[in-house]
C-alpha cells in the first residue's frame, strides 16, 4: 500500500509571532520556519507502517509557497521515499484549496491511505484532512492517537471530548494525526545531507485545474488586547483575601 503524507512549512512553534505594523498580515520576514509538528507525526506514522511491512512506498507532498521544499527535505531526511511539491506561484492557500490540490495529487498517486496533521499551527484551522475526505468521498478518522491496519481496514483510536473512541474505516481513507500518536524520530545529519540530493518533483498547480483563489478575505491581523498587569502576593492568606475581595470566590 502506498501512503501519501501532506506536510506544511510553518513558523517554528517556539518563535513568537507579530503582526505587520499595518495589520495586513503576519510578519514572516526572517522568521525561522519548520515542518508543522502534527505533519511530522504523520510522517513518522507512515514510516512505522513501512517498517512493519504494511506500507510499500511513502510519498510526501507539500503545497504552495516556493520555500515549502524545506518541509519536504525534512520528511525525506526522516525516511520518506519520494517527495513532490505543487507549485502555486507563492499563492496563499486556504484549507479548501489545499484539499482540492491534495485531491488532484491523490488521483495521480492513488495511495491507499492519506495521513495529515490534525491542524497547522499557523492558521489553526484543522480542516484540510476532513475536506479532502469529503472531496474524495472517502471515510475519515480525525485526531488519531493510535492507528492499526487490519486487512482492508484502518482501526483508529481518536482523541475525543472526555476520552477516546475507536472506529474502523474501510481503506482508502484519510486519517488526521494528533499529538499522542507517536514521538517523531530525530533527523540524523547524514540523512539530512542525503535528503538534499534526492529530487523533489515539481507539479505546476495550473495543470491540476484547481481554482485555489482565496474564499475568505483577511481584513486585519492584530495582537490580542494585553492583560492588565497583575500583582504578586506574599502568602496563601493574602491570596485568599484578594480572591474574596475580587468576588470570584
Amino acid at each position, binding site marked *: 500500500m502506498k501512503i501519501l503524507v501532506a506536510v506544511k512549512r510553518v513558523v517554528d*512553534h517556539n518563535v513568537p509571532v507579530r503582526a505587520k505594523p499595518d495589520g495586513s498580515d503576519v510578519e514572516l520576514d526572517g522568521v525561522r520556519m519548520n515542518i508543522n509538528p502534527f505533519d511530522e507525526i504523520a510522517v513518522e506514522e507512515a514510516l512505522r507502517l513501512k517498517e512493519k511491512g504494511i506500507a510499500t512506498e511513502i510519498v510526501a507532498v507539500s503545497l504552495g509557497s516556493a520555500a515549502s521544499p524545506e518541509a519536504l527535505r525534512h520528511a525525506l531526511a526522516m525516511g520518506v521515499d519520494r517527495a513532490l511539491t505543487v507549485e502555486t506561484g507563492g499563492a496563499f492557500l486556504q484549507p479548501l484549496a489545499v484539499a482540492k490540490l491534495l485531491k488532484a495529487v491523490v488521483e495521480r498517486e492513488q495511495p491507499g491511505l492519506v495521513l495529515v496533521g490534525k491542524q497547522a499551527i499557523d492558521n489553526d484551522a484543522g480542516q484540510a484532512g*476532513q475536506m479532502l*475526505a469529503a472531496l474524495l468521498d472517502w*471515510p475519515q478518522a480525525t485526531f488519531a492517537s493510535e492507528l492499526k491496519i487490519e486487512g482492508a481496514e484502518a482501526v483508529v483510536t481518536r482523541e475525543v471530548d472526555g476520552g*477516546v473512541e*475507536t472506529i474502523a474505516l474501510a481503506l482508502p481513507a484519510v486519517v488526521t494525526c494528533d499529538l499522542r500518536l507517536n514521538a517523531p524520530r530525530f533527523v540524523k545529519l547524514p540523512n539530512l545531507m542525503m535528503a538534499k540530493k534526492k529530487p523533489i518533483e515539481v507539479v505546476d498547480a495550473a495543470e491540476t485545474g484547481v481554482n485555489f483563489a482565496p474564499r475568505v478575505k483577511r481584513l486585519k491581523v492584530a495582537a490580542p488586547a494585553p*492583560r492588565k498587569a497583575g500583582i504578586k502576593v506574599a502568602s496563601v492568606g493574602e491570596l485568599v483575601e484578594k480572591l474574596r475581595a475580587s468576588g470570584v470566590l
Partner: protein
Amino acid sequence: MSVLILADHDGRQLKAASRRAVGAAKAWNAPIHVLVVGDDTAAVAAQAAALEGVTRVLRVDAAHLAHPLAADVANIIKALAGDFQVILAPHATLAKDVLPRVAGLLDVAMIADAIEITAPATYVRPIYAGNLLATVESNDPIQVVTVRATSFAAAGDAASPAAIESLPAPAADTRVRWVSESKNVSERPELASARVVVSGGRSFGERFEELLGPLADQLGAAIGATRAAVDAGFAPNEQQVGQTGTVVAPELYIAAGISGAQQHLAGMKDSQVIVAINHDPDAAIFQVADFGLVADLFDAVPQLTKALEQ
C-alpha cells in the same frame, strides 16, 4: 436567512457549549434551528427547544447514530443545507470532525473557532495559538462556522418551547464502523464550561490528583493540566488545556506549577481572573496572572485548600 446549529450532547444532556452557540447565533438576528443527531434524543431535543431564540428543533434518531460518525452527520447536514445560510456549532470534537467535511461537500470555506461575529460574514478568530487575532470575511453563500463557546453568552430560557420535528435518518455509511469508547467518568464539572479551573504542571508528579483533587472539590472546579503533565502520565489526556487540548475561559483559573508556555497560554489566557503559583519568580505565567504567588506548590496547594475550607 436561517441558522442551523449542530447540537453537541452526550445522549442525555445538551452540552453547555451548545447553549452558548445559540447565544452566538443571535448575531444574525435570524431564525435559529437546532439539529440534534443521535439515538433516543427526546430529552436533548426538549432541552434545545427550551432555549431562547430557537425556532425549531430537528431530530434525527437512528441506532447507528448513537455514536455519530463524521460521514453520517455530514450527509444529514448536507441534505438540509439548502434551507440555511449559516451552519454553526461549538468548536468541540464533534464539529471539528464534521463541519469541515460539510464545507468540503458544499464547496464552501469554513471559519474555525470564531470568537467574535459581525453578521453577515465577518469574524474574529485566533491564529498562531492565540498570539494573534485575524479578522476575516467569507465570500461564500453558506457560512460554515465553529464558535469558541466561552466567548459567547449562553442563550436564556424561552417563554414557550419551539416545535420539535423528527426527520428520517439516511442510511449509514457502511465504510465506517464505531468500535468502542473509553470515557473518563468524573463527578467534577466539564473542563470547557467550568466556572473555576485548577490546573497543574508536570512538577506535581505522581501527586497530581492527590494535591489538586481536594482543591478542585473545595472550589467546585474542573481540573486542567499542561501537555507535559499529560505526556508524563500524571493526568489524563482530556484534562489538557492549551492549543492542542481544551480552550477554557473560566471566571477563575488557578495555575499551579505551570511555567506558562505559549501552547498552554493559548488555552487559558482569556480567563477572567488568573492565579499563578510557581516557585520560579521569572516564570512566564506571572506575566498573565492577576495574582501571583512565588511558592513551592507542595506547600502552597494544600495550604490554599485548607484556607478555603474556613
